[in-house]
């Protein structure tokens, strides 16, 4: 894989294993994230796509510092993130969770929720300054000032998510991890939040790691897309190339499974990539490629040997034996 000197975040061979007891004396692990390497450039929106159980949230939480990696490293602006993170790092990496209903404290007002990061990261701020900043944050996410005095329970789901985004913005972060921020919301609300996120990204020169299972959404926001399957990256490519020429059989299956609303989109679906099989349990994975049981093009080699990432085009990497000779088939 190429390395990008402008990378704000560099994930190198990251592994996250969770012990789940022993079987026949052998310790068993769920390999939630297994040997993932990904660079994110400053000002970029990288989309991380995967089905449930693919390890996308675990990866996000590791970047946010909520899990300790089992192996590999995460570098932020060239500095390795160790066990203890300084306040300055915590300040610049923020996360927005999927369900705003449970990520906002129901006992606090929006004012208190937005004030907390300010109290921690800018203790010198006076009460008046904080109040001004809270109003400013609410303005950024297009909520009226009066919402300061409301509790999360009294506002709608979309508005709650906007408040959660405002909280993430409170510390002036440079990297924001968005873990399915709109998947609990209706499309009409989603459109509004996504457009706001894109505007904020431009205005504040933010970098987003955007996690979702919705590829249509990804197409419209991400500059680069990474596909995660059973804890491993299968394909990384610039969004345009990714949707025009998906290479990995799993990516093709994913794209062809999406229900779409126009013939123009229908034409983008790869033919002969109909969905079959199910995602296997991440415990005791079969040897070889994790996808071989569902793959129409699997060969004997796929059953015994796990492929490695190889470049097949400009910034386009695929982990599949079909591309081992370097040919961009």
């Amino acid at each position: 894989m190429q390395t990008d000197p402008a990378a704000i975040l560099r994930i190198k061979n990251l592994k996250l294993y969770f012990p789940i007891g022993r079987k026949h004396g052998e310790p068993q692990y769920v390999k939630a994230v297994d040997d993932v390497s990904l660079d994110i450039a400053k000002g970029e929106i990288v989309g991380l796509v995967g089905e449930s159980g693919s390890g996308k949230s675990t990866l996000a939480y590791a970047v946010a510092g909520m899990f300790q990696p089992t192996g590999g490293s995460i570098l932020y602006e060239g500095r390795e993130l160790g066990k203890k993170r300084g306040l300055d790092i915590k300040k610049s990496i923020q996360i927005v969770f999927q369900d705003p209903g449970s990520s906002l404290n129901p006992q606090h007002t929006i004012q208190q929720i937005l004030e907390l990061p300010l109290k921690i990261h800018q203790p010198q701020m006076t009460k008046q300054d904080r109040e001004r900043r809270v109003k400013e944050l609410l303005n950024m996410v297009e909520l009226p000032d009066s919402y300061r005095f409301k509790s999360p329970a009294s506002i709608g789901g979309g508005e709650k998510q906007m408040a959660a985004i405002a909280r993430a913005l409170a510390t002036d972060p440079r990297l924001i991890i968005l873990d399915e921020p709109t998947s609990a919301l209706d499309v009409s609300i989603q459109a509004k939040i996504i457009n706001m996120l894109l505007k904020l990204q431009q205005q504040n020169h933010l970098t987003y790691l955007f996690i979702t299972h919705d590829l249509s959404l990804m197409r419209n926001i991400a500059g680069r897309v990474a596909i995660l399957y059973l804890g491993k990256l299968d394909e990384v490519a610039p969004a345009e190339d990714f949707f025009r020429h998906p290479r990995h059989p799993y990516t093709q299956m994913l794209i062809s499974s999406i229900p779409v609303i126009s013939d123009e989109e229908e034409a983008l679906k790869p033919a002969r990539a109909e969905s079959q099989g199910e995602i296997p349990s991440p415990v005791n994975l079969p040897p070889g490629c994790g996808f071989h049981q569902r793959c129409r093009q699997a060969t004997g080699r796929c059953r015994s040997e796990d492929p490695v990432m190889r470049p097949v085009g400009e910034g386009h990497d695929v982990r599949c034996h079909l591309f081992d000779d370097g040919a961009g088939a």
Partner: protein
Amino acid sequence: MSSGEVNGEVNGERILDIRNLKLWYKVYKGYARVLNDVTLSVSRGEKVGLVGETGCGKTTTAKSILGIIPEHQYVVPEGEIYYKGKDILRMNAKELGQVRSGEISMIYQEPAAALNPVFTVGQQMMDVARYSSQGAGKNRKRHREMVLDAIRDVFIPDPERIFHFYPNQLSGGMKQRICIAMAIMTRRDLMIADEPGTALDVTIQAQVHKILNELVNRRHMALIMITHSLGVARELTDSIYVMYAGTVVESAPSAEIFRRPAHPYTIGLLAAAPRLSGGGIQSGIYGSIPDYGSPPPGCRFEPRCSRAGARCKAEAPSPREAEPGHQAACFNM
């Protein structure tokens, strides 16, 4: 009235006919006026999509067809639900039981919640065979055959093994297939599927939809597909009813809705959906659904509508024909 009097459709006999249905839930401060003039009809072999966002009354409509909302929780101030010419709302318990066990089946959104965790798949399905009006008495062997056939029909290999599984031993996609198997095990004329793929991953959802579609076609059943996704409705249905705040705002053959949407809500919904072909996401629809306790007196979409005028505030529009076979409830088309 008999179903024969209704004007003939391409697919023949009209089996379900909901007319101006209003359904209010009893809440502590009076009534939540949820369903407001739902008119919908389904013919034999027809696949109908009921599309709308959270809280628009899709599931309430489905439940009212089966009569499974507890009686003390609601009132129906107006409207009829004719099933094969008989009004479901005025059926007695025995007739209603007949409809539920022999005429209409339903698949729910959450397969994990629809299956009983303490009985095996086989035990639960045997129950359905026994109590359905077509179970043919106490012949256990015959019931077992029906169950195994149904499991085979949803493309699960090795039905004998699955028969002895508990639901928690199955993946989400498998559970949903079992629910479909239960719904098609005995002959039914109408299937109601309430977001059957929403809780599943997109690749599994595609498989479930394919199975459902094949079975409904093969058995010539009518299907009501409830979904929040216009894409799902486009793939699976012949005609689409778009619901907003308890009202059917637009209804048309599926292709028409996408080619020439007429109601501002449908247009907004289509604009807000992210496209696989890119091009960014257009603006969404501002605001949220009205409070059902005191809904707007006029058009229920008026507070969020960009085209709304004075008339929309005062008067509720009734469905008008935008084109032949394409109706929308809006004054400003």
